[in-house]
């Protein structure tokens, strides 16, 4: 059993234009862990996620997925191992919810076969798990932001990935949808998947993540337990915002904004 889901070795990347520089970053993500990427806008969180997903080309260094170099994997293998939810998704016009979630089976089924019985069972289970039964035949174009985000997550999980990459999964969502999503992601991590998510709210990271990767200026500043990495003094330096710690009901440290400096 491979325990390290994602390994980055001396990864650097530079966009074709502009002065931004990412890396060098070396880090490993274990299976069964919920990892939160935290850091200011433009720090390189999405870049890191896009590099792991393989969308960004032209990097230096090595990335391994489930024990094998990314370059040795076919696109379809990659699709079976790893699901990726980017920000600002597009909605294919008129696609019904069930069929959209069914696309998650594409890397398993391939381009020429129809979904089999097993695939339908998986899709149905996700529809139930996300409370989407009443929306089954609705077009994804007509859904609310929260509904569509749950549909996308259902699709990503129907992919049965070992690695789940999410760019701000709770963005634009109300408190209850966000809590539902984070709880489910935590569960998925506990069941053995490696979940790597960009989270903007440091308190979400403190409450849900097993590990935090703190990203700033294109580099990994610190990795480790959320309570250690997200210390108020360090964050104040990065964000330029004064933070005060307080305890949640479970005795976990959380952070409140005191004032901007």
């Amino acid at each position, binding site marked *: 059993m491979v325990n390290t889901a994602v390994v980055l070795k001396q990864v650097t990347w530079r966009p074709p234009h502009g002065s931004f520089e990412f890396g060098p970053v070396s880090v490993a993500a274990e299976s069964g862990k919920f990892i939160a990427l935290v850091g200011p806008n433009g720090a390189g969180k999405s870049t890191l996620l896009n590099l792991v*997903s393989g969308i960004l080309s032209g990097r230096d260094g090595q990335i391994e997925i489930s024990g094998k170099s990314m370059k040795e994997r076919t*696109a379809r293998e990659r699709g079976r191992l790893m699901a*990726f939810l980017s920000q600002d*998704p597009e909605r294919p*016009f008129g696609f019904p919810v069930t069929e959209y979630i069914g*696309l998650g089976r594409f890397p398993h089924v391939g*381009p020429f076969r129809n979904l089999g019985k097993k695939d339908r069972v998986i899709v149905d289970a996700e529809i139930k798990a996300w409370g989407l039964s009443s929306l089954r035949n609705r077009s994804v*174009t007509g859904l609310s932001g929260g509904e569509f985000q749950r549909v996308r997550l259902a699709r990503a999980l129907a992919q049965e990935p070992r690695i789940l990459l999410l760019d701000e999964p709770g963005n634009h969502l109300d408190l209850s949808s966000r809590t539902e999503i984070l709880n489910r992601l935590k569960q998925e991590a506990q069941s053995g998947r490696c979940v790597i998510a960009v989270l903007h709210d440091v308190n979400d990271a403190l409450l849900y993540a097993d590990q935090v990767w703190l990203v700033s200026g294109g580099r990994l500043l610190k990795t480790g337990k959320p309570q250690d990495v997200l210390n108020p003094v360090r964050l104040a330096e990065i964000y330029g915002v004064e933070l005060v710690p307080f305890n949640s009901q479970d005795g976990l440290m959380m952070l409140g904004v005191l004032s901007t400096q």
Partner: protein
Amino acid sequence: MKERKISIAGIFVLAAVILLAVSYGSVRIPLPDIISILTGNSEGLPETWKLILWRIRIPRTLAAALVGGVLATGGVATQGLFRNPLSEPYLLGISSGAALGATIAIVAAPSFLSAAGLGVIGTAAFLGAMVVTFTVFIAAGKGAFKLPSTLLLSGIAIAFLCQAVIWLLMTYNRDQVERITFWTLGSLSSAGWSKVLWLSAITIPSTIVLASMGRVIDVLSTGYDSAHGLGLRPQRSAAVILAFTALGTAAAVAVSGSIGFIGLMVPHAVRLLGGPSHRKLVIRSWFGGAILLVLADLAARTINPPGEIPVGIVTALLGAPFLLILARGKKGEGRLDG
């Protein structure tokens, strides 16, 4: 079950519409006599009927079906790939390139340019379509599929360029203006058996490829990042699909001129009837486009006999109100506001 019914209905309606189109025209040939002639029992029937059927109406009607079918499947592919309900295959520069090629041929008449049965103008139109489409892709650059608006913009820019050159050529060749205009409006009046063969050889394989890649188009229609995450190489898949779309459309335009609205309209209508799954959409739209163009061509040559209206005018007259209805209705379901 319902699925199969729609497909079978498509075949029957197309067959019926073809018989209708073959029967009507400046000379009316009754249906039973058509069947007699087709099955070889033409004794006692006028020899001219046989000639009209075999030489003119059957090839022309088949050409209409093949052209309409491939234009509609091209619309499915481009709308899916560009995630834009207003796209159609002509936006790739195909029709403007074909028009430019045809105009040059009409003006300069380089008689050495004549591929199997297409004629000088048709061959020039096909070459023009391919060259200009290729230019559009090059101009759009590497990230063309990632940001479809780049490709669409470069298509539109190059279309304007082609149009400017066409107008320039028209200015200096006033005597050819009518021919050029009529070619651009689209017509099937010159379609004979050699063109039917040429169309079949290119458009049928390209439609089969597009239908077999239907699920890939499904995945691509969810966006670049998403398609990549689902295990595709989006650029590569999109390039294959667009190449076959361009090839099929160019073949059609070379035969018939740029007949508008079919590529835009038919996929929407079929999507409303039978859902957005692209494999089915490609096949059903092929039938939809074939049926529509056979009917439109029938109208074009029978409304005011013996004269003909360019069939492109008929499809535009049908298409515009259709689009307005489509844009106003169904908005809640978000079919057009993709």
